[in-house]
């Protein structure tokens, strides 16, 4: 899948990860990012958090994320950072924040990690807010040659806004 960000020339590319964490698991978009030219999505996948014992589930998730970044030679990971919810903070937010910590540690042990806020994506990419891009079907139809789920779009936006 290609994300057509810029069609001019292509330099050496790096493997970058865009990571969106919820209480249920991790959505990950893995992309080859050249200095210029279209970004190629290598993988758009989700890693489910195991049910049951939470310590063991976190340990498994740590291993999966660390191994993935290490084996694939990932240079940089962009993780959507925790944010205060205007609608109130429930257990789901706290669970997601716990898992986000695991993801930060796991990826940080294998590559450079950057925490990216929604506001900074909105500032650094295009002229609209991140949520508007995520919901805009025509934007994704026009700029990708495959289908992306909503969570994956957010993860991809983290990469787009960081280049």
């Amino acid at each position, binding site marked *: 899948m290609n994300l057509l960000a810029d069609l001019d020339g292509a330099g050496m590319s790096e493997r970058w990860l865009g990571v969106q964490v919820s209480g249920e698991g991790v959505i990950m978009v893995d992309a080859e990012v050249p200095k210029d030219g279209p970004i190629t999505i290598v993988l758009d996948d989700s*890693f*489910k958090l195991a049910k*049951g014992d939470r310590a*063991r589930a976190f340990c498994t998730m740590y291993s999966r994320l660390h191994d993935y970044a290490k*084996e694939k030679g990932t240079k940089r990971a962009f993780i959507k950072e925790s944010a205060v919810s205007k609608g109130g903070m429930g257990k789901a937010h706290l669970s997601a924040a716990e898992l986000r910590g695991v993801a930060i540690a796991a990826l940080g042990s294998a590559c450079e990690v950057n925490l990216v806020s929604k506001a900074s994506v909105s500032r650094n990419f295009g002229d609209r807010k991140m949520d508007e891009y995520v919901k805009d079907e025509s934007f994704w139809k026009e700029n990708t040659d495959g289908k992306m789920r909503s969570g994956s779009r957010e993860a991809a936006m983290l990469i787009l806004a960081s280049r």
Partner: protein
Amino acid sequence: MTDLVSALQIGKKLGNGHFGEVHLGEDPVHGPVAVKMYRALPDEDPAKWEARKAALLQEGVNLRKAKHRHVVQVHHIVSSQTDDAVHLVMELCERGSLQDRYEAGPLPTRDVHAIATDICHGLGALHDREMLHRDIKPGNLLMDGNGVAKLGDFGLVTDDIILGYADIAGYFDHLAPEVFETGQTNSRSDFWALGMTLYRLLHGDAWYRSSPAPRYLVRDLGYANRLAWLPHISSRWRRLIRAMLNDDPHARLATHGKVLDSLAAMAGDICWEYESDGTTSKWRRNAKDRLIEVILEPAGKKWVWAAISHPLARGVKRTLEASKGAVNKATADRGIRAFFESCL
């Protein structure tokens, strides 16, 4: 160059690996280690001994390239001054292989789940590095002192992959149908072998041996649909193992990520301890302040079963479910299976 003398001390024999004996060792740097010993046999042709030495060295190289926390680590290789022995010095997995536990009976599903998760990480790392294991079986899964499972015995590991395939090898009962057909293995056939291994760990050796060996059946296809299951093995486990034993390698569940996702979905499932004396079968689990016990036993030519909740302290014994009098074996099995599924 100065000749160096190793300070490695060799201790008691631990077991047999694919190509040689394994002994306990004491290494000045690593402490207790496992030492796989190759020695020239008294009447061995020198050329054959050279070939065996080369195989050991290759195993050492493979293990070094496969370094991962769920793969047994190789520290170094020591050759004797007289050149009649080569020692592969490896990480010691204190609890040994799973062969003995497998032979003793079915492992609890919780333990098999943890083992499967660990081994998937190790196998995934191997495959990411374009290496195959080709000999996954209970005897080649080792447990360290902390209960972490690791892939070991790399006598058959190869990175000599041409178009993703390597020559036929491995434990005959764990070979996928396409390996019988083409004589070639790949990462998908490693997952077949892992599926077979998980099935065996969940059922134990006696149960596994009560059915014809896979080597006689796998070639005819549809092997996964002919497996006999213990009643407490959940639908989720059965689906996972059947998916790993899909005859079509391209439809097979054969990536570590997909297997880990399936394992994640069943991680919190209830675990039953199972024991059988060959006639009466018992399952037990603790539930808060009660012990749930399911007993299946013969009644003449028929069978009876009951699921009973016992208080661990004060309280009364309750029958949760039971067969309606003596029933035939198939009816009893169906009833128990339905009870276990209702507990999930």
